[in-house]
């Protein structure tokens, strides 16, 4: 039972009302902007409402908008906290899908750049656990109420958050010193690991 | 006719030499047959280069390579047990060849209780596997050893029972006597019973030797090599590869002796008597080896608990029933 994008937008607006700060269509998919404190509520409604039925968790990630050229914008430096409409910080991006009615919804959750904190939706979608772990280590976002917010890809002693625009790729900008021993004798002297 | 008289000690040396030469050579040939048969069944060629003609020296080359390997014992392993385990596995396999009759008069040691000796010696290897797994200080080896111990104990019984049934039918425990008591058409007589006993023996033997579909203990994709994971070099070759191949050939020979008529011709047709018994024995053993290997490459492996269930709930009650039927046949049959 296919739901056309325009109808989907109407239904979403009707069900969510003022819980979302912005709702529009983008290339045939519904785009919503939600504040962090209403994030979990909105996701729960999207999943549980029979008329919406977004039961399929596609992904959760983030975008560092600090150098994004918003309309009428000059070039901005990476990590600049100043933003337009509160949109130039770190943005959590969630994509949900309704398998029965075949429509997509993108949720944008703008966060404060200096200390990005976002509630976790692992209570709603179990699959968000790994996605949130990855977003946390890559962007430095802290997800509250997450059952196991440890690093997923990176080692525990990794410094920095790679996906931020202020993190330069080593090969193209600077070279970091090799952290461990440089030859087998050194390694053995250091206690053998 | 050359008259050779040898003292008892000299006879002993000759017999040991025969075993120590024949068994490794047999294992080498068996290994080559394994490679080639597996290859052709999988639509490829197998060893082709070692030795020139179709890679006949492949297993020999492998053996020489293993002799060059470094002998590694894990630091936290139990050294004495670790070193002894391959011997405990390999020596009983060697001893199995003592009592197998190749021809009417060609047997290393014609024991009156040959069959009993075979079954007893065959079960000593289980201890060796446990020793290998436990002393390796490796969790995977431990899991493999525990699985193996359970499996070997469970599948001893079908072998023992089917061999006992054959002993009942033949009226003797001596292997030469058993072969003599067999007549054409071998496993088809007694009707149904012979075939059932043969299949029981076959399944038990495959599990005894941890061949697929019963190779959970050495499940390659899970436990790498099970109890033998930490073994390298000559220890590995003797404890694992040699033992496995020699064991398989030994069991094929035992199966031939018990069920297929040993060194007797396939059909009791006059002109066939000119072919020596050794050749018949060789042909029948080769057929058994081929059968074992064929099954080995075709099936996925049973899970350990399914394996155990199969043994204790199906095979052992079945073997008990077959013993009863055999007893009835011996008493009341023709």
């Amino acid at each position, binding site marked *: 039972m296919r739901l056309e994008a325009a109808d989907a937008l109407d239904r979403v607006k009707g069900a969510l009302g003022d819980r979302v700060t912005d709702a529009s269509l983008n290339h045939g998919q519904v785009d919503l902007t939600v504040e962090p404190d209403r994030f979990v509520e909105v996701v729960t409604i999207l999943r549980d409402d029979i008329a919406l039925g977004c*039961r399929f968790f*596609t*992904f959760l990630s983030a*975008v560092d908008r600090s150098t994004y050229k918003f309309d009428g914008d000059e070039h901005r430096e990476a990590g600049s906290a100043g933003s337009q409409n509160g949109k130039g910080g770190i943005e959590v991006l969630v994509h949900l899908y309704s*398998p029965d009615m075949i429509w997509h919804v*993108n949720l944008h959750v703008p966060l404060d750049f200096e200390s990005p904190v976002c509630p976790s939706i692992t209570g709603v979608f179990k*699959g968000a656990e790994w996605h949130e772990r990855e977003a946390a280590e890559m962007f430095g976002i802290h997800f509250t109420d997450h059952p196991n917010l440890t690093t997923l890809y990176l080692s525990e002693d990794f410094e920095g958050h790679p996906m931020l625009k202020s993190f330069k790729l080593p090969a193209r900008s600077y070279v970091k010193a090799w952290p461990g021993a440089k030859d087998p004798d050194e390694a053995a002297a250091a206690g053998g690991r | 006719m050359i008259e050779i008289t040898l003292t008892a000690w000299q006879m002993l040396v000759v017999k040991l030499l025969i075993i120590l030469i024949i068994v490794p050579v047999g294992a080498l040939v068996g290994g080559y047959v394994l490679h080639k048969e597996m290859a052709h069944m999988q639509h490829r060629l197998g060893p082709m280069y070692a030795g020139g003609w179709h890679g006949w020296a492949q297993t020999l080359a492998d053996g020489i390579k293993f002799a060059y390997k470094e002998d590694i014992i894990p630091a936290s392993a139990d050294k004495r047990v670790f070193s002894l385990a391959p011997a405990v596995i390999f020596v009983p396999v060697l001893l199995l060849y003592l009592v197998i009759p190749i021809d009417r008069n060609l047997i290393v040691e014609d024991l009156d209780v040959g069959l009993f000796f075979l079954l007893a010696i065959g079960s000593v290897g289980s201890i060796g596997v446990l020793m290998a797994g436990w002393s390796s200080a490796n969790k995977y080896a431990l899991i493999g050893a525990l699985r193996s111990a359970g499996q070997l104990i469970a599948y001893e019984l079908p072998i023992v029972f089917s061999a006992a049934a054959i002993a009942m039918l033949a009226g003797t425990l001596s292997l030469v006597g058993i072969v003599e008591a067999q007549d054409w058409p071998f496993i088809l007589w007694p009707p149904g019973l012979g075939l059932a006993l043969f299949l029981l023996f076959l399944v038990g033997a495959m599990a005894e030797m941890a061949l697929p*579909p019963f190779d959970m203990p050495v499940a390659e994709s*899970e436990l790498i090599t099970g109890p033998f994971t930490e073994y390298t070099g000559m220890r590995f070759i003797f404890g694992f590869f040699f033992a496995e191949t020699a064991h398989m050939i030994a069991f094929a020979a035992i199966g031939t002796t018990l069920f297929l008529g040993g060194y007797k011709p396939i059909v009791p047709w006059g002109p066939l008597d000119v072919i020596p018994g050794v050749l018949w024995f060789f042909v029948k053993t080769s057929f058994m080896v081929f059968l074992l290997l064929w099954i080995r490459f075709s099936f*996925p492996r049973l899970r350990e608990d399914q394996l155990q269930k199969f043994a204790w709930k199906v095979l052992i009650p079945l073997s008990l029933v077959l013993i009863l039927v055999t007893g009835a046949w011996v008493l009341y049959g023709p």
Partner: protein
Amino acid sequence: MTIKDPELQNLQDSSAFATEVSEGRLVTEQMLLNVGPQHPATHGVFRLLATIDGERIVRAEPIVGYMHRGYEKLVEQRDYRQITNLISRMDWLSGINNELPLALALEELMEIEVPPRAQYLRVALAEMNRILNHLMFFQSFSAELGAITPTFYAFREREDIQYAMETVTGGRMHFGFFRPGGLKEDVPRGFTAMALAAVRKVIKRLPDYEDLLTGNEIFKQRTIDIGVLDKEVAYSYGVSGPIGRGSSIDMDVRRDEPYLVYDEFDFDVCRGTHGDCFDRFWVLLHEVIESAKIVEQALAGLPPGPIMGKVPRVVEAPKGEVYIRTENPLGELGLYLVSDGGKRPYRIKIRTPSFSNVSALPHVLENTLVADMIAILGSFFFVLGDVDR
């Protein structure tokens, strides 16, 4: 378990274990088993930290990231056309399917129209790659269960298809052939016949494989009712592809939101009913048949014409964001492209199927046997490059 022998009961051994036993309690320990990162059964560097009690897994925690190459950061530094070869190496068994979402996303943003010949050829090549991928997992799953022979049969079939793809793209595993707007170049003469022959040979031999495995009693015992993944759980983890369809999820991007020209072809979507290993494997095998059908229809109806649309010399996507998803052989591969004008993407979020599928493993592996763990890992059809990106 109490010890009745009076001699043993009087045993005053100082070890705690002896005391425990003589008091009538048997103590067992839970063991921490590291499956991987180097292990024959785990398709690459994948580590599973399993807490096992005897032969039963109490808890299994996958530890990934051994192959993390930082794709999402790398693509931000590269031209759109340089990204094609990079993201082809994620799910390395479906090389050409990985290039598809990028090409489609750029075509959507830049509003390029792709000529029909390119569309048909894209479909044919993508489906041939799907057959390659599924045959590979067919052999790896059987090998893990102990049946070593199907490996060689599968590779024999793959050889012909890989050869056909090599004549077109020059590669056997990584192709680098799709461009925004069409293809790199046209197919050589004789490709259609060669591809059709290769695909038909696979279909002719497929019933043998089915008999060899799905009809085998041992195989059925090892896979039926093992590793059941519930449909709602699968939805909440985002499990898609053959694994999702094995749990009777009715999702196939090719049918639901047809991209390229999939709406012109006639094919079925295979679904399992129980969500166990057997169903996932069965879906895998039957998808090969459906893919072959699509290849035949695509190559039979191949229209003549150009293979590249009107693409400006400099590939610059206008400002905008779009999420494009395709049906990768392993599941739903999605690309969220954020562009702020320019030759490089601002941000690409690559939603890989294996990442979501593997995140459902802890749930499925709870309370299973160690030997079943291997069957379940094998039936989850993941590629480490996809999980780690």
